[in-house]
């Protein structure tokens, strides 16, 4: 694949893989949990399936009915974990998984097409508006995909797949825009 070529006006911008602070949170989404999480992280706990909430550089992604992934700038993981553990009560699990995840970002009018080449999910704006996120099959790996307020997408993957997916995404973003 040629790395350089004529500039494409509506090319897709690919960034990453980037490291973030990542915490896994597992608990039942009770009212007290929601309050404690909001206090500790400053982000609302998304309880609606397949959604994420963002406040500044911090975000919380729904992964399952009792599982969330918190992301924040790299290096803040210890402080966030301490805050979370101090705020939570009862049965919960908080795990530092900052090493386990890497983030890509896709932006541009044809970013959706790159996602559609890679995943069987429906990324049409009618089905996947800002605030939505899904865990799904991505190429031959899996990924957590989130649609941000600006319409760009975070593609969050397991660290061990990051080299493979970087290569995949480079290839998938290469193509000149053509048909639907």
């Amino acid at each position, binding site marked *: *694949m*040629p790395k350089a*070529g004529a500039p494409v006006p509506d090319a897709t911008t690919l960034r990453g893989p980037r*490291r973030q602070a990542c915490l*896994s949170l*597992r*608990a039942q989404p009770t009212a007290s949990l929601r309050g404690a999480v909001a206090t500790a992280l400053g982000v609302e706990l998304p309880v609606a399936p397949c959604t994420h909430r963002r406040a500044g550089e911090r975000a919380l992604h729904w992964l399952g009915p*009792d599982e969330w992934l918190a992301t924040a700038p*790299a290096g803040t993981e210890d402080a966030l974990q301490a805050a979370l553990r101090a705020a939570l009560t009862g*049965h*919960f*699990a*908080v*795990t*530092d*998984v*900052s*090493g*386990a*995840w890497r983030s890509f970002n896709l932006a541009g009018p044809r970013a959706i*097409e790159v996602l*559609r*080449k890679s*995943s*069987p*999910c*429906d990324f*049409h704006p*009618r*089905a996947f508006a800002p605030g939505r996120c899904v865990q799904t099959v991505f*190429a*031959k*790996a899996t990924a957590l995909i989130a649609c941000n307020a600006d319409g760009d997408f975070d593609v969050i993957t*397991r*660290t*061990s*797949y*990051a*080299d*493979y*997916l970087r*290569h*995949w995404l480079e*290839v*998938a973003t*290469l*193509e*000149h825009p*053509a*048909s*639907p």
Partner: protein
Amino acid sequence: MSAGGASLPTSSHPAHTPARPAHSPARRLPAGGRIDRSQPLRFTFDGRSMSGFGGDTLASALLANGVDTVAQSFKHGRRRGIVGSGAEEPNAIVDLADGAHRIPNQRATQVELHAGLVATSGARRPLKRFAGAFAGVMPAGFYYKFFMGPPWLWRRWEALLRRAAGLGAVPAGADPDTYDKLNHHCDVLVVGGGPAGIAAALAAARVDARVVLVDEQNEFGGSLLGAPQAIGDTPATQWIDAAIEELSARPNVALLPRATAFGYYDHNFVTALERRTDHLGATSPSAPRQRLHRIRAKQVALATGAVERPATFANNDLPGVMLASAVATYLNRYAVAPGTRLLLFTSNDNAYRTALDWRRAGRCVVAVSDTRPGPEGALVAQAVAAGIEIHRAHAVIEAIGRKRVAGALIAPLSEDGRRLAAKPRRLDCDLIACSDGWSPAIHLSSQAGARPRWNEEGMMFLPGAPRQPTLCAGAVNGAMSLAACLADGAAAGARAAHAAGFGDARPRFAPPPVEEAEEGAARPLFIAPHVQPSSRAPKQFVDFQLDVTAADIELAAREGYRSVEHAKRYTALGFGTDQGKLGNVNGVAILARALGQGIAETGVTVFRPAYTPVTFGAIAGRDTGELFDAERHTPMHAWHAAHGAAWENVGRWKRPWHYPQADETMHDAVVRECRSARQSVAMLDASTLGKIDVQGADAAAFLDRIYAGSFQRLGVGRCRYGLMLREDGTIFDDGVAARLADTRFLLHTTTGNAEAALAWLELWRQTEWPDLDVYFTSVTDHWATAALAGPKARDVLRRVCDDIDLSREAFPFMSVRSGHVAGRPARVFRISFSGELCFEVNVAAHDGMDVWNALMAAGEPFGITPYGTETMHVLRAEKGFIIVGQDTDGSMTPEDMGLGWAVRHGKPFGFIGDRSLALADHRRADRLHFVGLATTDAAAVLPEGAQIVAASTRRAAKPTTPRAMQGHVTSSYFSPALERSIALAMLKRGRERLGEIVCCPLADGREVSAQVVNPIFFDAEGRRTRA
């Protein structure tokens, strides 16, 4: 090119073709068609240079160039010409391009012409040689009959058939083109871009449903592109242009021309193959040549049209016998007249259009042979008015000619159409256009599970009751007039959209008025009678591609094949790449007649994907070459690569296998790495090991149920080896679990089982024990793990770790400590898979590379050596440690493996698999046991998988075969520490047989004898590990 430039040949053998100049003016009409005459294109067919125009297909250009013969038939070696104009074409199957770019198996009727196109006709050359041999000896049921014969005979036939039968040649070299896939979700998928499909798309799009419109041609319009019809006051093509313009402007519509919907699968999942650059004749690496569209639709509207049915008569495969609709399409769309003197053989009104168009183009219509005694539709009247001679209640019973049609025998029909009422007579003609009715293209509907139903009125199979959310519209539904197609399409589009939640099911789209010719009833024959019975008459072909004749089908019926599915397989009817698009219905009708039953009760075979052949490239998509599989890399991957690691694939992980230096062999490298670990210190990247963080008040109770051993009383900071069993008592996974806190554990799983083990834990938590307070989180990717092994491991670690007391007393074997290594937060386990003093240093993935480098630097004075998976295997085998999945195969219990010590019966809840260990079969005395083997010849390394039999006794000079298998070798290496070959094996009653000599017969005939020994070869007391 001038119209009067050539005088038309009038002899009865007008078409001994090669003499005709390329691009014959006689074939290409001077005006008209949808071709671009300003764009002449040169191309090559079978080495001959020819020319055509932009807008041509390869087939229309071949016809324009006077090419009559495009193939020789599979079985009989007969000349074959172009019959159709679309996906149904059985004969004009060509290979495109050459070398690695070669694309076999393309229908010339669907190949868009481009400059420099190189085409080769299919299987002609090899067949010439064998045709004679095949013709007489390949009756119906050939494969059935010869598979029964002696095997050696079949092998001879197979060799011949493989050379002869292939449609096209395999490309020479790896495919240089790129392909990809694109997923779609839509409310309404419309398949087919003819009038019905466009109307359906408009109706659905105007109520804001998400619509995908797929069509296999290069432009939308379907049958209208080949027929001069009007919609409202304008030519139909103008109406199409306006409709497509509206659709393409809508953001809720995706148009996919040049895309063939070839598969209709469960839950409204449809696949379509889009040809993106094939028509350009050039490829660009960033532009995929073809794209596979995977479309999930809430509703599917099938507007796939209909394929004309050819007539079955003697010699109906002669070049110059074509479908009436194809003749009209070549004439109107491509301005090509594939002959001069036309004889139309029809059983319906519709085909009269071809005769009328032919006459309008200034060509001679010899006559119309109509099966019906009193055809009286409007088109018939027009033909009469135009002075065309019509032979009523007549059939063409035989085509005459050598290289091409030179005439035809026609004869009057009896009242029931099954016999001849009088002697045949000859008409001179060079083109026979035939139509025995229409077969709706029900393939996709049938693929979706709808059983086709026979419609007696229309004499056609229609789509059956849908088993998925499918609607059919237009000709596929039996609507044969343009007005009916438009109305049907609009209604289907609106209904589909409504079912998907849009609009009110009434089309917001008034089908424009269309003037229709009233048509009379049709009378298909399915097979024209001949003077002779089918078995004696010249061959009457039903399936052109596989050379199946009417006589073959009648033979199958006589031989007892009553089911249409069986008769299909026996005769190979419809088995070609064209899937019998032309011949199937005629074949069913002939079978029904031979069985003395109706077509409805005979039924039709089930159609399966793919509708037309699909390239492997498109199926593979981007998953080729370096992207063939998802490779997983550890955080130290780049270091391994830079240090010359040879790789081993473990699941999806790339793991260093060994690190060969200079000209070392693998054996050399492994011996060096093993010695380093046993004598000083060596380091392994163990990051791939599965790791699961378990938290919750009931964590210990849960693990007690999952592991065969006991974890309740495991102290904080301590580790224990655990076995997970399946419920049937066999070993599922093993690994070391560590208690990090009272309510927190870290489990290690085998590399390949990490995901399955996590799913296993979740299964029990979610379905059986939701009351237990426990959560799991995969931390496999979070941790980078360096296993520092060897007598000097403590000395190395001490140099980069000052906040953990590494002494034997403070940090004993099977414990875990937290601290810092090389300044990074670390968790260090004193566990060992090598049998040496070992520290497994875990740091966050992003610290992995730095810490690895620091450990290498710290180890330098001790000659630290990186080691790979092969050395890991040798070291663990010397210690008799099992690898689940290598030494176990899914049938082994802990007791079999000598791991009874890791099982604790009598725990309060028991554990998964506990009850099964008490089953009689698991307690059999003669089960396989895990043992070591020491070969008699210390240098002979047994192959893994070698079978074990009793050693030959002196009495039997020659061992008898077969000898009872007593077990097999599961692991085998050369041990540098012992300087001899060692093996691990499963052996019947093995633990009772220590000291016995057994024998392994090898594939090459050698026999290797070995002594049964304890599987722990090295440091059986474990002093080194605990050092």
